[in-house]
Structure formats: structure tokens, C-alpha cells
């Protein structure tokens, strides 16, 4: 399940009114989430949750569900 906090952070960064996410949603399915804005989304998520990702952890991710799991693991 994708938390409202993560959803809001991504939507704000991409300046989207609304977009329905589920665990299997991938970045290329989200309007505006391209290779250049990817960096800003990651920085916004790090800032919002006050965490730091390793590049290897991020490059392994297949979808937003895995990003949520990674955030949850970091916050434990």
C-alpha cells in the first residue's frame, strides 16, 4: 500500500493534481516523471522522510511499491 505521504510528495514534486498509484506503478507510467525530474522526486522523498538512499538501493527498485518498502525499512 502506498502511503498518502509518499503519494503527496511525488504529486507535489511533479506538479500533478491527482494520479492513482498502486504498488505496481512504475515511474514511466506517471506523467512528467522522466529521467530529468527523477532526481527531483528522489530528493523530495529524501527530504520529506528525512532519510538518505544509496544509489544501489534506488537502482534496484522496480516500482513505487518497492520504493515504499525501502522507505518503510529506513524508518524502522
Amino acid at each position, binding site marked *: 500500500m502506498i502511503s498518502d505521504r509518499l503519494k503527496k510528495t511525488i504529486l507535489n514534486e511533479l506538479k500533478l493534481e491527482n494520479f492513482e498509484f498502486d504498488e505496481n506503478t512504475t515511474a514511466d507510467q506517471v506523467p512528467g516523471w522522466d*529521467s*530529468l525530474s*527523477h*532526481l527531483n522526486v528522489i*530528493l523530495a522523498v529524501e527530504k520529506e522522510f528525512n532519510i538518505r*538512499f544509496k*544509489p544501489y538501493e*534506488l*537502482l*534496484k527498485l522496480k516500482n513505487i511499491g518497492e520504493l515504499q518498502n525501502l522507505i518503510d525499512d529506513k524508518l524502522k
Partner: protein
Amino acid sequence: MQFNSFIFFIFFIIVLVSYYNISSNKRNIVLLISNYIFYSYFDYRFSILLLSLTTITYFLGNFISKNNTYELKRKFLITGVFINILILGIFKYLNFFSESFVSLVNLFGFYLDPVTISTIQPLGISFYIFQSLTWLFDNYYEKIDKEYNIIEFLTFSSFFPTVIAGPIERAHRLMPQIKNDRDFNKENIKAGFYLIVYGLFRKVLIGDTIGRMINHIFAEPEYFTSFEILAAILLYAIQIYNDFAGYSSIARGAAKMLGFDIMLNFKQPYFADSVTDFWRRWHISFSTWLRDYIFYPLQLKFRYYGRWGNLLAIILTFLLCGIWHGASWNFVLWGLLHGIYLSIPVLTGQGSSFINNKINNSSTLRILSIIKTFILVLIAWILFRIENWSTLMTLVNQLVLFSSGEFVARFIKIILSYYFVSFLLDYLEIKFQTDNILLKLTPAVAFGISLIVSIIVLSYLITSDKAPFIYARF
């Protein structure tokens, strides 16, 4: 053997017949043998290099996937990438770097002889090494969830439809298809055949016929007027697109007939409304390779430097993009120029260009953006096409003379005709939402067109010299 040769068609028919007349569990063996026959046709010694390098890469990829510690995975990845890049460096770049270094040293008054080796570059080396590297990366990033035996990997890394000039497939996409059974399917044969016909049309009837007209203009530009040189540059953009998109369609078609889905490599690139958009549509298998395995890791590494980090990642990625195409400074500059184009929206903020602020009508804005993008790409193609700096200087000198000559009307007709046909094909691809447009026509029409195109292509192949695929030399 080249795709646009008789020997390939005979080879391919024999492969298809033997492939589908053998039990499905032996098809990978037939395919692997076919791959090596195809590749050895150029030079059997290159096959030894391909086999040795990919065997080492297979085992290193397995070590990566079977180790649970991050540090060990990383060590095996670095070893694998190092070995592959070292081999690529020796065969493709050693002479270039050695001569460039010596020229630099000689500038400071020293005298050195460059260390060079006398060898021909193994065909498709940049393509098959980049394809094999995805096995290492995909294992490292845990994108491969099954075990694969060495036969499956060697079949993947030498896959004959793509080994010479791509599309560069990913291990996590193509290896599962190699593992699965592939039964004879009439629809696959039909779809593949139509893609091959379509690719041959683009390559032989558009790309090659343009090549015959413009090659001598680029060879001796001093004998041509400004208008003729401009015409050659404009036609080159259509030639390189149709040559490479044609090749990719033939590769996808041949793979489809064998039961494989190879990724789309072109998506109407000259309809792009920004250079960023162009790279989403041009040589997609390579641009996404660079994005996933080079740009993203660099971008994440430099992320705390803000937009300058993004900029550095873009420039480094596009320098690599340029030099991947050839060991020559013109390709480095071509890559750098595209890197600069892509850096501008990052520096200025996207959507804030002069055109965007002045034009409100979205259709007009899109058309102007497409023209602007095309001009930028066209300027970069000049760097891509030149063979040496003196040619570039002559081209520029001739262009600024603003001379027109007596063939203006004829060249305008030629340019308009080729642009019309190339853009019509792109329009039909958009309309039918596929690059296999023959498949969308009624069977009788599609068969009729295929027959006519095949006869014309065959007569061209009989009566004229076969032009090699431009990208096959990379």
C-alpha cells in the same frame, strides 16, 4: 553476411526450416550454431573473441547473482565491466587514444611515436559488448529472477538478428524469451516477414538511393554549390534514419519469425518536439541503455550538487554516447553537442524557452518546436557525417558562399520527395500505432505491396552495389 544480401536470405530460410523442424528443447542449440555461422561469415577469428569474452561474462554474472554480499557483488561487476571495456578499448579505441595522446604531447615540443596495433575492428563489438554488459548489470540490480545455463546466455549474447547493429536487448527481457519454448506460429512468420519487407524498403529504396546521390558531395564538397551541400545535409538526415530504422525493422522481423519480441528502436524521431524527446525516439535501445546503466547511477551519485550534478551526469553520458559510435573526435563532439542541447532545459527550467512564451496556440507551438528540434539535430548530423576536419571546413566554406547552381529545382524535387515518403511512413506508424504498418492493411493489399517491394528490392540488389548499413561499422 549483411541483411541486404542474397546469402543472408538463403541462410535465414535454412535456419527457419531447421529451427522449426527440431524438437523445441533443441531450438536454442540450433539458434546458437546459427548465430556463430552468421558471425563467422565475416571472420571466424572474431567468433573466438565473441565466444571467449561472453563465456567469461556469463560466469561473472552468475557470481554476482549467487553472492549475497553487496561488496562481493560489486567486485564481480567491476571485474566484468573492466574486462569487457578493456577488450573494447583495445580493438576500437587504442589507436585513437594513443594517437590523440601523442598529438597532445607533441604540441608541447616533445616527440613520441604512437603505440598502435594493426587490426580490423571486430564487427558489432560495441553492440554485443553492451548487450552482454546488461547480464552483469541486471544480475547486480537483481532484475534476473531465474537461473540460466551457458547455452541460453551464449545464444543471447550472439543472437544473430541483433549481434551486428542491435537493437541492444536487455538480459532481463530477452533471456526469459530464450528460456521459454517457441512453437511455430503462422502469425509470427507473417508479422516478421512484413517487418523485413518494411525494413528493406526503408534501407534499400530510401537510405541507399539517397546515399548514392550524396556520398560524392560529402567526399568532394569543394566541387559543389552551397545549395547542393545544404541538400546533401538535409538528405543525410533522412538517409541515416531510414538506413538504421530499416536495419532495426529487419532485425526485429527476423527475430519475430524465430518467435522473439525485440524492443522497438525508433519511434518517429523527427516528430520530436525537443532534443530530450528526440532521444526518447531515436535508437531507443541504446538511449535507454545509457539512461539506465550510466545516466541514472551518475545522476544519483551527483544528486546533492543540484542542477549542476544533473548537468555533469548529462554531459558525461553524452560524451560516452558520442565515443561509443566511433573512435574519432567528430563523434565525441557530436555527443557533446547533444549533451549541451539537453543541458539547456536543465539550466533554464523546462518550458521557459522564447518560443513557448510567445506562442499560445498549441498546434503552432508543437510544429515550431518540431522544426526547431529538427534543425538542432541536423546541425549535429554534420559532425556525425564528416570524415575529417578539412571536410568540415570545406563544407562550411562552400555553404557561406550562398551559391545555388543550375540544379536547384531538381534538388528541391528530390528533397521534397524523400521527405514526403519518409514522413508518410512515420505518419502511418503513428496512425496505426505500430511500426508494422503492413500488418494493419487488408491481407491482399499488404501481400501486393510486399510483392512489389520485394521485386524492386531484389532488382536493386542484383543490379547495384550493396551499401553496408551505416551503424554496422560501430
